[in-house]
């Protein structure tokens, strides 16, 4: 078990785990999102190549209404 910080909240996970796999695991299906890993934005194409370690942080965002 590892502990991640996802969108500011702590989360347990089986790990180390591949980022793409992790997103599926927690139920994220929509594609119009972006992910930052430890403060670095990960291009879509590289999501598979990221491995999440204990203590890592993730920001997962999407578009919302704004002006």
């Amino acid at each position, binding site marked *: 078990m590892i502990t991640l910080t996802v969108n500011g909240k702590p989360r347990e996970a089986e790990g180390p785990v591949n980022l793409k796999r992790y997103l599926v695991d927690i139920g994220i*299906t929509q594609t*119009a*999102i972006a992910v930052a890993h430890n403060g670095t*934005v990960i291009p879509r194409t590289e999501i598979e190549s990221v491995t999440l370690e204990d203590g890592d942080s993730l920001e*997962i*965002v999407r*578009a*919302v*209404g*704004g002006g």
Partner: protein
Amino acid sequence: MDDKLVIADKEFDSRLMVGTGRHRSNEEMVESIEASGAEIITVAIRRLDLDNLEEKNILDYFNWDEYTILPNTAGCKTADEAVFTAHLAREVTGSDWVKVEVIPYPEYLLPDPRGTYDACKRLVDEGFVVLPYIHADPVLAKHLEEIGCATVMPLGSAIGSGQGVQTLDEIRIIIRQSTVPVVVDAGLAVPSDASVALEAGADAVLVNTAIAQAEDPAGMGEAFKLGVQAGRMAYNAGRIARRATGVPSSPAEGVAATAS
């Protein structure tokens, strides 16, 4: 007449940009934006709600063949946050257009000239198409143009204040000096506010709260569409000058005399 708005080599027929915030429902949002005739739509970037993954994505409400998406960096207090958010936005939207907002203090929602400049400089260098939201500061506007911003977006008054265009004198200077489109953003409440900006020579306006929070958003959206067209047409038609005294609109000579 061919009179298109051109931003970063992209042509637009509409000179009205609209935001997607503060709508009472997504239905009102879609209906009012259609009524407004806008072709450029702003969105914000926020954390996905992991406890509510079923929520429909705002991007799914629009046909993106008809609209250009303009993600903003609203909520960012520093240049670093704005650059980071721009990177996220590019991944989310697939677009490299970004409306840069750097707003350190929440009460008046006024932009930071230095933080905005720094964020724009970095994002332009990275190849983004940058539309900065700024105070109506002609020197800052000129410097942002010089570093390659695609437009400048001076504020009419504070975001959501509905005070209209309080900064017209400065905006006139910005227009006179600018070689990129000037888009008046924030504070517009009614179509006359948009007309005033376009009559003065502004290239476009951005409206959000005025439409989203109107009693009838679709009606207000159409009203802004017409107000923007009216303002641009009047700018092209050449207005009369202001005069301190009056001039009769009927002939002075030839009035019939009453019996004396």
